[in-house]
């Protein structure tokens, strides 16, 4: 007997749609000389002091497992960092867990809290992994569409409407991928009231927190009464340009972090040790590098938003992350067609907005984490493309 077809696969896995990003990657990577605005990661290499610290840890022979929840030293630094930047108060002993990227932290959080059939509200346009992660954890993702008219800021009333007796949690992401939208203190406060009223948990993905440009960032956990209801997710990938190191963390109430650690100890053991040593250096001596990168992103954001507006595309000024999410509705093309034609005709790769949920239709995501020279050229090409439609 041979194993063929899909009859042996998990029904849950089979039910997941393949990622639209994957399809686009396959298209783009077959072509030469493409300028890619499709990359969801920094264009900086990890700061040298971090790389060097990781080397040093290897030379010193730090190649064994760490504690399940990560090096205590690192958890202490994370706790200190969260306190200094966002006025949060987490005990490094039992309220923090170091994970393999923020993605794993999201997975752990969902698996730690969900019973079969419970619902999790997911905001779209949003990161492609949330809904599948909910499904894989046995839950039901319920989509709420953030409105383009409101700069893609999800409204508390919208969330409240989506709540049923089965609702367990809401996943928030601010600054948002793909829209770059940041929810401010007041907006988070309104959401907090709904969360409190309906006794929910919030999984707050704050991976882009350090890349907030126009106003200071507010963590959802810092809203009154919310620390005990929030699972804060963050990591080193974006702010410290450490995507490939796969290092993230979660902070939250003791019972939830302990439950997450339980899953983590059986399925992962611990995050990579050499990456943890690098992260330690990043937190201790990385502030100036982060500030430098942040300023560079901010300048490039200004550049791209202006360039897009000059060519007549509607584009809100995103408050954070390194994406712009312009509307291409006036071209009359769908997101997919626009992105595909742009790739073939002008060799610029962008991500069609609909891969981030149906409310992303009519938009494209452009990452401005690429050199000014490339950005400048890609804007010229997009302009030419639009004029030739």
């Amino acid at each position, binding site marked *: 007997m041979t194993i063929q077809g899909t009859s042996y696969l998990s029904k849950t896995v089979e039910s997941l749609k393949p990622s639209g990003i994957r399809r*686009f990657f396959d298209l*783009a990577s077959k072509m030469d000389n493409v300028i*890619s605005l*499709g990359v969801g990661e920094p264009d900086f290499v990890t700061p040298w002091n971090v790389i060097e610290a990781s080397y040093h840890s290897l030379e010193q022979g730090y190649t064994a497992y760490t504690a399940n929840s990560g090096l205590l030293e690192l958890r202490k630094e994370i706790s200190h960092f969260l306190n200094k930047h966002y006025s949060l108060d987490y005990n490094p002993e039992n309220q923090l867990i170091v994970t393999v990227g923020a993605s794993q932290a999201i997975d752990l959080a969902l698996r730690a809290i969900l019973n079969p059939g419970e619902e999790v509200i997911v905001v779209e346009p949003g990161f492609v992994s949330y809904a599948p992660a909910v499904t894989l954890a046995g839950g039901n993702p319920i989509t709420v569409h953030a409105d383009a008219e409101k700069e893609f800021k999800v409204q508390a009333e919208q969330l409240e409407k989506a709540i049923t007796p089965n609702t367990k949690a809401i996943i928030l992401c601010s600054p948002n991928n793909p829209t770059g939208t940041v929810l401010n203190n007041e907006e988070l406060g309104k959401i907090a009231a709904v969360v409190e009223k309906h006794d929910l948990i919030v999984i707050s993905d704050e991976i882009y927190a350090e890349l907030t440009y126009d106003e200071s960032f507010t963590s959802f956990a810092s809203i009154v009464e919310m620390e005990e209801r929030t699972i804060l997710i963050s990591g080193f990938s974006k702010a410290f340009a450490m995507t490939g190191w796969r290092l993230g963390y979660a902070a939250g109430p003791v019972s939830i972090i302990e439950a997450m650690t339980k899953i983590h100890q059986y399925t992962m053991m611990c995050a990579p040790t050499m990456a943890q040593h690098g992260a330690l250096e990043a937190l201790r001596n990385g502030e100036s590098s982060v500030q430098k990168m942040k300023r560079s992103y901010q*300048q490039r954001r200004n550049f791209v938003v202006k360039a897009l507006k000059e060519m007549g595309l509607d584009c809100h000024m995103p408050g954070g992350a390194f994406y712009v999410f312009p509307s291409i509705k006036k071209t009359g093309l769908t997101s997919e067609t626009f992105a595909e034609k742009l790739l073939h005709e002008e060799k610029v790769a962008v991500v069609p907005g609909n891969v981030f949920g149906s409310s992303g239709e009519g938009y494209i995501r452009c990452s401005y984490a690429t050199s000014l020279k490339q950005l400048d050229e890609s804007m010229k090409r997009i302009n030419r493309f639009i004029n030739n439609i």
Partner: protein
Amino acid sequence: MKQKEIELLELLEENARINIESIAKMIDVSVEETKKMIEKLENDNAILGYSTIINWSKVLESEEVTAMIDVKVTPARGVGFDKVAERIYRFPEVKAVYLMSGAYDLSVSVEGKTMMEISRFVSEKLSTLDTVISTTTHFVLKKYKHDGVIFDDGEDDKRIMVTP
């Protein structure tokens, strides 16, 4: 405005050939305003010049020779080290002069066509100055990084094309 000026200067410092329209967009002021800021900074001598970092070894058969010379001098009353520094930095082959703390006083960077040419400069021009007590000449063997620029063929983008 001060903050915008600093941003502008940092952008120019990184790439003096960046076009004004790009700068204006990046620092969020008008093109006209950007031009005015640059003009003002030039007039104030905050911007002293625009130079190009060249890897001459890519172009010339034999690269120019660079030497760093540690110079001990006797400071003069009233003008300290400034007078002797000026005597030295006026020579066109001198590319940089710094007053240093530590074992010697002036660090002088000199460029010449050959080692002989630099030796001649040291023995005939530099050592013979009244105030110069001693010199120690170090020749540069290889340039790895200069003015913040690494001298190799640049790093390619190692990221994959499209990621979430």
